[in-house]
């Protein structure tokens, strides 16, 4: 599949589809003939239905286009509830359907309710078939069938899918204050004539993707196609999104890498002043920052994959951080590239316009930015408490595990303090200086330990701090995985050698991201009457200046 995606003809084919807003039917068919469905089948044998494999597919496809990436990636997302809760018999049947070419979509959102899944209105009436007709039954009696009525909207691939993983309301919410999310159930619906396709939406990013809606008019679903228990749907969706968020970071990583490749190629060829613009210091500066941000997105995405593989649902914090930060940093990388390409970045005839459109897509998937910030703030607060800390887990040494096993690992979220992670990194051999980052982590944790509950309760404070906190964790991911020596010491395989000196690039990324995170946190904390010492920020600024000059020099020298 990777070899097929790397063919230059594929780029031409996708560009034509995007221009004409046409679904890339032929390409998708070719990829499926290359045994792509095996990747999702969770079949016995070589373990290829793993977090690592699916994230890699996401990143490789996103290097081509977001339209293709979300078209291929949706199967992995839609099957997550099955990996989490399907019985062995159900998994076997799903495997058979997927290997026979069945496509799967995930039907969660509704037009009126948007991201409020607890408000799902599509109904799955409980009943049984009697004399060929559906008869509703009273609550408490076991259902033999469900009858679905309602409408789902803004659903990727729904118009083409044969299997519809659908969240429906089979009961009323529980009466108490925490019961709002009760009464929801996940059903794997086999498409039939009662499922009507609703028109395709035209979208700014991913214009070749087929995003539309579906209307159910009394669709009958046997109870054996229920995934998990009745009423467990909300929890299943939450768990699935916890795991899929790392995959969104992989999408962002693919787009950032594509942007980087296009900007570097352009800057080495474009010579309006007689020499390639990459040799000009301001342009080399943008390219250096862009490459550093691209590296950071890769590292944070890989860290989430490793955590999800090793810990399953316990990696909820790492996947939320990855989704938030990877999408933000990829957008920043694309903006740096726009400064390199200038007007060319906005021409339909130049491929860069595609990444400008695509990169804004991923942030809205699987929980909005605000949902991520809320979760990160809440867990950051836990980590700042005196005595908080988590056991050391070697997530990178865990071999890739099949998703129907790794996804079912559950327990309390793994919340290692950033300062402890930094201290552990300092013990490992490495070329990136982690001392300023460790100092930054300690300073922020100490400052936050002094913040009162009322201040934390203000979203304007909590969300801003969560963003800074997540950025510090991203910088830690770069110190772990962007530094080739430390990466090897952690048990990870090498990354392909880049043209730029990797330790310098990693140091630039660490200093840039952590420095800005601290600056933002200091401002917010000052508003709350809490001081954040300036020393770590100063150290990081010096590091950024030195590493930046080395990377910029390398960019200029390579051109």
């Amino acid at each position, binding site marked *: 599949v990777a070899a097929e995606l790397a063919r230059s003809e594929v780029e031409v084919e996708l560009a034509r589809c995007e221009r004409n807003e046409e679904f890339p039917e032929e390409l998708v068919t070719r990829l499926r003939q290359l045994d792509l469905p095996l990747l999702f089948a969770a079949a016995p044998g070589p373990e290829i239905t793993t977090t690592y494999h699916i994230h890699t597919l996401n990143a490789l496809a996103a290097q081509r286009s977001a339209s293709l990436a979300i078209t291929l990636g949706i199967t992995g997302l839609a099957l997550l509830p099955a990996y989490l809760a399907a019985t062995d018999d159900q998994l076997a049947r799903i495997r058979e359907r997927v290997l026979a070419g069945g496509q799967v979509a995930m039907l969660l959102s509704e037009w009126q309710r948007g991201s409020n899944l*607890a408000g799902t209105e599509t109904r799955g009436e409980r009943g049984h078939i009697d004399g060929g007709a559906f008869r509703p039954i009273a609550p408490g009696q076991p259902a033999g069938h469900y009858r679905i009525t309602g409408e789902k909207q803004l659903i990727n691939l729904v118009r083409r899918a044969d299997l519809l993983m659908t969240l429906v309301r089979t009961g009323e*919410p*529980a*009466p*108490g*204050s*925490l*019961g*709002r*999310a*009760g009464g929801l159930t996940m059903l794997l619906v086999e498409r039939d004539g009662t499922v009507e396709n609703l028109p395709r939406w035209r979208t700014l990013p991913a214009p070749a993707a087929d995003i539309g809606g579906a209307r159910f008019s009394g669709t009958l679903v046997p109870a054996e196609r229920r995934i*998990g*228990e*009745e*009423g*467990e749907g*909300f*929890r299943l969706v*939450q768990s699935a999104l916890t795991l899929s968020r790392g995959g969104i970071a992989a999408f962002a990583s693919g787009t950032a890498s594509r942007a980087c490749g296009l900007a570097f190629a352009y800057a080495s060829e474009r010579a309006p002043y007689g020499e390639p613009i990459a040799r000009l210091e301001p342009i080399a500066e943008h390219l250096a920052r862009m490459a550093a941000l691209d590296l950071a997105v890769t590292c944070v995405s890989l860290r989430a994959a490793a955590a999800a593989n090793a810990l399953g*649902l316990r990696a*909820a914090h790492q996947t939320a951080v990855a989704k938030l930060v990877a999408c933000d940093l990829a957008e920043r990388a694309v903006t740096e590239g726009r400064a390199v390409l200038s007007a060319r970045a906005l021409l339909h005839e130049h491929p860069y316009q595609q990444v400008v459109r695509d990169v804004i897509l991923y942030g809205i998937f699987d929980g909005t930015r605000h949902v991520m910030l809320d*979760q990160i703030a*809440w867990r950051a*607060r*836990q980590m*700042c*408490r005196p005595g908080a800390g988590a056991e050391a887990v070697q997530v990178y040494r865990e071999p890739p595990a099949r998703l129907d096993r790794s996804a079912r690992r*559950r*327990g*309390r*979220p793994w919340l290692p303090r950033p300062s402890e992670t930094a201290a552990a990194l300092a013990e490992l051999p490495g070329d990136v200086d982690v001392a300023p980052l460790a100092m930054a982590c300690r300073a922020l944790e100490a400052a936050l330990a002094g913040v009162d*509950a009322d201040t*934390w*309760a203000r979203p304007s404070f909590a969300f801003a701090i969560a963003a800074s906190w997540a950025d510090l964790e991203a910088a830690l991911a770069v110190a772990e995985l962007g530094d080739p020596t430390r990466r090897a010491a952690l048990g990870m395989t090498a990354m392909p050698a880049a043209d730029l000196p990797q330790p310098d690039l990693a140091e630039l990324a660490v200093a840039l991201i952590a420095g800005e995170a601290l600056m933002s946190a200091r401002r917010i904390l000052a508003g709350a009457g809490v001081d954040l010492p300036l020393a770590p920020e100063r150290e990081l600024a010096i590091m950024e200046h030195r590493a930046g000059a080395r990377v910029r020099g390398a960019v200029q020298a390579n051109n």
Partner: protein
Amino acid sequence: VAQSKTLETVMGLIADVCAVDAGTVKPEGKLLAFGIDSVRLLDLILAIEDRYGLELSESDPELGALETVRDLAALVERRLEAHR
């Protein structure tokens, strides 16, 4: 005695998961007041499961109907009894 011990442990877990001072968690305190909503409830359930080696089902209607810290501790106690 057993119930009060469970109550004490549950109060500690709430303080831990919600990152609030242990002294602010009272038996009659409303769970919502500690910021526990339907999403965060999952973290608390996982903490309880971890502590007691129990498996609580999020689809359990009793769980949704909880209002206070004491209600939650009583539910844990009932599940522990059933488990024994």
